[in-house]
């Protein structure tokens, strides 16, 4: 039995931790930073509409039987030729742009979040091992990290994504594309987390509480996960927020280049790719609205990340 469990905390009122959090500096500062509040609201709206896409959209863009070619290339509803259910117009296949954006945001956000989570997990495992164990293992892991950083990330992501796709049988490709994309983005972005975790782990590992835990003969794994990890998580979370924007951007770029989400399951990047092929014929709405949504998402995430970094930076207090 461990030490923490024998010391009984005084019975706290319910939601006490939530209360302290809400009264804390972070929330106070947040409510007084208009850009952060607006970004949070924008993101929340986008995320909720993306989750509720099947309820909100007039058409299921994945269901080919719902696409009508006679409704193709309709302009947005406020122009003269606009038609009723198609709020933002349709593309050449009669796909409703509004529905496609809702479903597309869903995929973009999902892959963005998933790849950040995967790369954070890889980074934590590598960083903790490297920082706590040290020696040869540390050297090896960090060299691998250097190697990943010595090739442009976009290039690695394109190659990994293209090669995995090629290795899979054709029937499985479309279903596995989100997994492939998540992997290829995570492979290129874990190094940053690993470096942060490693640096803080090396500092923490010398402190008295870790020494005390080691004297108690707690297993190394437990020291790493329950003692050191909570103390290095702040820096990781800030970086993760800042990188979420980059991850969403990376997915959009891959899809735009044609090595990402297929046309049958378009993400925002794929929609921009489709629109890019047709806007010379005058249908600007096919490309402009998904581009706007994508930019809005990344901008909001970046503004939130910036605020969080400044709010948690002790130097600026």
């Amino acid at each position, binding site marked *: 039995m461990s030490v923490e469990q024998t010391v009984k905390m005084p019975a706290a009122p319910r939601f006490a931790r939530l209360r302290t959090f809400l009264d804390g500096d972070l929330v106070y500062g947040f409510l007084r930073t208009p850009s952060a509040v607006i970004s949070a609201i924008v993101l929340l709206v986008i995320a909720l509409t993306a989750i509720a896409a099947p309820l909100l959209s007039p058409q299921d863009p994945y269901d080919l039987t719902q696409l009508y070619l006679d409704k193709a290339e309709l302009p947005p509803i406020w122009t003269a030729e606009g038609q009723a259910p198609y709020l933002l117009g349709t593309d050449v296949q009669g796909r409703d742009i509004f529905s496609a954006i809702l479903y597309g945001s869903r995929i973009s956000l999902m892959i963005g979040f998933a790849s950040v989570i995967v790369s954070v997990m890889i980074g934590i495992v590598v960083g903790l091992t490297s920082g706590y164990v040290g020696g040869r293992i540390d050297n090896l892991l960090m060299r691998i990290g*250097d*190697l990943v950083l*010595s*090739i*442009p*990330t*976009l*290039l690695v992501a*394109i*190659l990994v994504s*293209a*090669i995995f796709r*090629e*290795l899979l049988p054709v029937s499985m490709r479309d279903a596995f594309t989100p997994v492939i994309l998540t992997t290829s983005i995570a492979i290129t972005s874990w190094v940053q987390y690993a*470096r942060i975790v490693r640096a803080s782990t090396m500092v923490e590992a010398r402190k008295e509480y870790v020494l005390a835990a080691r004297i108690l003969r707690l297993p190394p794994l437990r020291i790493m996960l329950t003692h050191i990890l909570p103390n290095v998580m702040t820096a990781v979370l800030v970086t993760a927020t800042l990188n979420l*924007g980059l991850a969403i*951007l990376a997915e*959009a*770029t891959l899809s*735009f*280049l*044609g*090595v990402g989400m297929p046309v049958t399951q378009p993400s925002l990047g794929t929609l*921009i790719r489709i*629109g*890019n092929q047709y*806007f*010379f014929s*005058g249908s*600007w709405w096919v*490309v*402009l609205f998904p*581009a706007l949504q*994508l*930019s809005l998402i*990344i*901008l909001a995430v*970046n*503004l939130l990340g*910036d605020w969080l970094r400044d709010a948690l930076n002790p130097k600026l207090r």
Partner: protein
Amino acid sequence: MLAIIVKRIGNAALVMLVVAFIAFMIFQFLGDPVQLMLNAQASQEERVALRLRLGLDQPVVMQFFSFVIRAVQGDFGISFRNQREVMSLIAERFPATFELVMVSTVLALAIGVPLGVFAAINPKNPAARIARMISMVGVSVPAFVIGIVLILVFSVQLGWLPAFGRGEVVQFGTWSTGLLTPSGRLALIMPATSLALFQISFIMRLVTAEMLEVLRTDYVKFARARGLPDRIVHFRHALRNCMMPVVTMTGMLIGDLIAFALVTETVFQWPGMGLLFVQAVMFIDIPVMAAYLMIVSVIFITLNTIVDFIYLAVDPRLRQTGTAGGANVR
């Protein structure tokens, strides 16, 4: 000092070798070259003959060895897609990418650094605030979105600038340049701007952050106390010490620009090697993919190594410990 330089170069060479190995493994994993190069009616003898000619009967280590030897000599094989030598394909496309990247680098530095200094010196100035806001948008809006919007406005709506291609080019032997013809210069404006915009914003934010930190230091306060005019304090005392990260950034920036040029080249159908690579990826044209990976990596690693050396030359503190700690600012 010499030991550090030798170690650095050795490191760079080792990384190159690993990249070469990755490129080699792509060949090994993706399809049998014999099957890709011969048609279905080829006889067994023909297959064996080709296999021997390509050296595929050798052990893997020997194959890798000859792959590296050939790569160093610039021989990356023959493109699966258009049956031409990969190296001549890339040599043909390289000037276009080089021109685009160089113009963008100049734009990024010439606009980004002064804007960053301006925003740091006058933090309350409304123009500086607007510049900071635009820079936030600049790092958030994807380059291809900016490219598309530029085309929509300046080509489709206004008809001022060409939407794709490189315009007329002038040939100098194997090198071609669009900078000498009016149509070539016009065609360069939009790709270079959309490629540079992210870097302009990025450099501006970096310089602003560095400047704000330096302006708080004692030696700047002391220079002010001595009664030096603001101009000298800002540019001679403060800016000089902000240039270190900018030097690093410029090295990485050129590397990043070469990699990101492939997106811009796709949007504007710019006939550079990035577009060649994207098309090769679509067709799984492995020799072109491998060659592009290796060439871009060579440029990237060389730039990073040069940046490390500049660091050593500029900052004497690093020569003792032998670690370019600042090289990892990103």
